[in-house]
């Protein structure tokens, strides 16, 4: 399910990057950035139905969330996890199909974009209600244990706003009561839609929540890829080894609007000067070049390859048929005999 080595023949220098999967991770970051910029331009061109919600600025932490997952693991990505979804194995074509309304996307036009799942690699389809996914991941892990599976973990993400829902609390707590191998990556991007931290919570730092649930807590600068790989990779490893549930809190700044309809003009200028407010994609690229882990030519080639992949996915999806109401199987449940007499629109 995962590409196991840096693709495209990346030439690593003698002075290796700090994490063996650093360059592979960066490629997912780059792919995500290029893909989401394409999405944004399609959105501006009126070619996308529904909202576009990007993970701009969150590519490092999100990639780290997807990168360490193995076959049999459970992944519960949220709206800003394009990078993690890709790193965990969702093909670019599936997300493109979903955004462009192809009937062949995994949600078949029934649900959209950021709600999509990709069961092939254990990726769940979130509902909007923030925090609701955590207990679902816990339930999957309980079931795997009951079925006798081994060596699996579950990883899911949550925003600093979503941490304030009751569902998050109940989900976090039941995970440690059930002693399941859960990694919860909380991304404090300092805004929940337009709302800053001081109207979301009033603890010194969110990682202080960890002891209250019997979790191990870790903090990480979400703009530093190496640190994200270390902390999230480490948390995954500890969970897999039978450790308690892990909470990793990443700090960064959301570098886009809440969605592409939002100009984020409420973000004050000062905050953008914080060290954790940097853009992880160019920062990582700069470091890679400085350290000579890749040369400029290779990076250029990556960009070209990714752009081609993206264009191809878009073209494919655009050629595909949209869902058609008259062919739709309007049935909310799977058991035919249990479908209630239809009292339908227009019938």
């Amino acid at each position: 399910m995962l590409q196991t080595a840096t693709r495209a023949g990346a030439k690593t220098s003698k002075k290796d990057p700090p994490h063996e999967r650093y360059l592979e991770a960066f490629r997912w970051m780059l792919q995500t950035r290029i893909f989401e910029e394409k999405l944004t331009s399609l959105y501006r061109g009126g070619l996308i139905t529904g909202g576009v919600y990007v993970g701009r600025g969150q590519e490092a932490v999100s990639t780290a969330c997807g990168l360490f997952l193995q076959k049999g693991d459970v992944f519960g990505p949220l709206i800003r996890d394009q990078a993690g979804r890709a790193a965990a194995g969702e093909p670019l074509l599936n997300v493109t199909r979903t955004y462009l309304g192809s009937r062949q996307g995994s949600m078949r036009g029934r649900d959209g974009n950021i709600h999509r799942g990709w069961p092939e690699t254990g990726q769940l389809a979130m509902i909007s209600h923030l925090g609701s996914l955590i207990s679902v991941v816990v339930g999957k892990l309980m079931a795997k244990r009951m079925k006798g599976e081994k060596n699996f973990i579950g990883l899911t993400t949550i925003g600093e706003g979503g941490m304030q829902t009751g569902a998050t609390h109940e989900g976090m707590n039941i995970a440690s009561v059930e002693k399941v191998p859960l990694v919860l990556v909380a991304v404090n991007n300092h805004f929940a839609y337009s709302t800053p931290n001081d109207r979301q919570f009033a603890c010194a730092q969110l990682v202080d929540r960890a002891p209250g649930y019997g979790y191990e807590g870790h903090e990480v600068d979400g703009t530093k890829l190496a640190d994200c790989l270390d902390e999230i990779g480490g948390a995954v490893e500890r969970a897999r080894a039978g450790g308690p549930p892990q909470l990793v809190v990443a700090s960064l700044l959301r570098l886009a609007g809440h969605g592409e309809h939002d100009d984020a003009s409420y973000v004050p200028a000062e905050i953008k000067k914080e060290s954790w407010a940097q853009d992880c994609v160019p920062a990582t690229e700069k470091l890679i070049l400085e350290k000579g882990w890749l040369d400029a030519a290779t990076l250029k080639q990556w960009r070209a390859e990714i752009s081609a992949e993206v264009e191809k996915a878009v073209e494919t999806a655009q050629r595909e048929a949209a869902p058609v109401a008259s062919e739709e199987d309007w049935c909310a449940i799977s058991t035919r005999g249990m479908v209630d007499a239809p009292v339908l629109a227009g019938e």
Partner: protein
Amino acid sequence: MSVTYLEAIREAQAHLLREDERVYLYGQDIAGKFGGAFKATKGLAEKFPGRVLNTPISEDAMVGTAIGAAMEGMRPIVEMQFADFSSIALNQILNNAGTQFFRTNIPCPITVRLPSGGTKGSGPFHSQSMEAIYSHYPGLVVVTPATVEDAYTMLIDAVAIDDPVIYCEHKYLYYHLKADALPKDRLPIGKARIVRPGRDLSIVTYSAMVHEALAVAKEFSASGVEIEVVDLRSIKPLDTETVLASVARTGRLLCVGESFPWGGATAEVIARVATEGFHLLDAAPARINARDTPIPYHPNLWVDHRPNAKSIAAKARRILAE
């Protein structure tokens, strides 16, 4: 040997645990020697170690984990301590379990047991019947067994269904209702049952009110009036066909439900008969529900808050006089 409605629920769970290794029970205080607030799981934790699990007081997460486990191939049965507390799990039930199959094509076979309905002195938060809310939203099957036999077979069938089932068991029937033995046969979920044939009036109802209706039918029979009593058994799907056939026979319809008056099963039944069987009706249909207030704690108030044989009889008399 005789079996109560409550014992039937316990036996159905024992049967399921024995026969289907995918089944586990999840709820507050259901494990250990204790076996649940109403003892519906008494003895099961000992007999099936690791498969009857106590949960924290976290209804949202209880159902959330069940959804995850169900998508992973298990068949969880979640016990709410009282139906009333399922309000906390409602988001997971309606928006997560109820939409899962339509959205993802992955079935979500959870069963949620709701100890429902009024008993005296239980008050506004331990007496509710929530079937209407769960039926209004798409994606759920909602069953309301009224007999010992149905309590047994419908719970077994609920777990077999590949979709989320809300199993509304009535607390008043737990001890009040007895059968000679567990049933051998079953009527499938989705089919209503004519529990007493009649010719003059159809009373369509479900759950505990079936027994109030039967009492009325018996009383009227003495004076030559034959009331047909239809037990819906499941209110979603709702067996419109059987209801219409009954109204075709009697020409008169009274719907009785224990829950609140606005909307709900009685409104739905009347709407279906009025729209699809208008010409079968010889008189205006009627309905009786609980009053439109919270369910009062004091028995003097409670008995007057919900429908009962007396109020049903009075209404029946008026319809028959039309």
